[in-house]
């Protein structure tokens, strides 16, 4: 299997209010237009390059996790990654928001030595896929 080629990276501030403003149609108001317009060259770049895969690295504003268990690093494996619902964009379901859920892959997995290792105890079953 050929390794992928990294063609670029994009960065964005992550204030939750940005998504809310965009979802509630404030992208063209004087307050938000300068910031929202900043995304347009990035959108054009993605459109032109058509990457096969995007890896999204994001922090968690106490949305998915709570302080009883807060991992330093976590890998989200799912067919679809929903946006956290804190009620800011109330009245709009995740299907009709301007920013939809992110498509993902439920087949992603860690490629490593341990993926076919034997159980260390006595059952001798194969662990992993």
């Amino acid at each position, binding site marked *: 299997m050929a390794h992928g080629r990294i063609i670029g990276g994009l960065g964005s501030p992550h204030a939750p209010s940005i998504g*809310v*403003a965009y979802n509630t149609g404030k992208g063209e*108001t004087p*307050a938000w237009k300068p910031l929202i317009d900043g995304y347009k060259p990035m959108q054009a770049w993605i459109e032109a390059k058509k990457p096969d895969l995007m890896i999204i690295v994001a922090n968690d504003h106490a949305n998915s996790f*709570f302080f009883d268990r807060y991992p330093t690093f976590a890998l989200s494996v799912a067919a679809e990654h929903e946006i*956290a619902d*804190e*009620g800011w964009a109330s009245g709009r379901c995740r299907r009709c928001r301007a920013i939809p859920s992110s498509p993902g892959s439920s087949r992603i997995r860690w490629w490593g030595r341990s993926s076919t290792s034997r159980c260390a105890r006595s059952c001798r079953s194969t662990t992993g896929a």
Partner: protein
Amino acid sequence: MPDEKRPARPAWETEVEILPIRSPQIDFAHPLPGTYLTTGARAQRGYRLSKFCMAFMSPETRAAFKADPERVMTEHGLSDYEKTLIREQNFNAMVRYGVNAFMIFKLANAFGVNQNQTGAKMRRESYEEFLKTRNVKDAL
């Protein structure tokens, strides 16, 4: 710089829990007005209230709180003091108590208070006063 006009702080704000911290950069005798040390002890004290705020991630809890806040607070086993902080929407006291800022935003939203209004409350200003300090008035 000590602010002599400021009323005396409640005991739990200045209690000795911060003593294990030794830093020449912090003058514990004269904390900066409006800033509060976050410590493990405070975070643990605020844990129950933080967890209560986390429940607002669910639309059902948001609707139940809107209909009957007292019932939801009692169901989550909040103490009288914690209930008072919520009833008064005293976000500054919540920070001092040990509630995480992200949790306070979830709670504020349940009251229909947006982020700018929360900021205004924490600055002890009316929303109109606060908006005068912004370059663009309708940023949120």
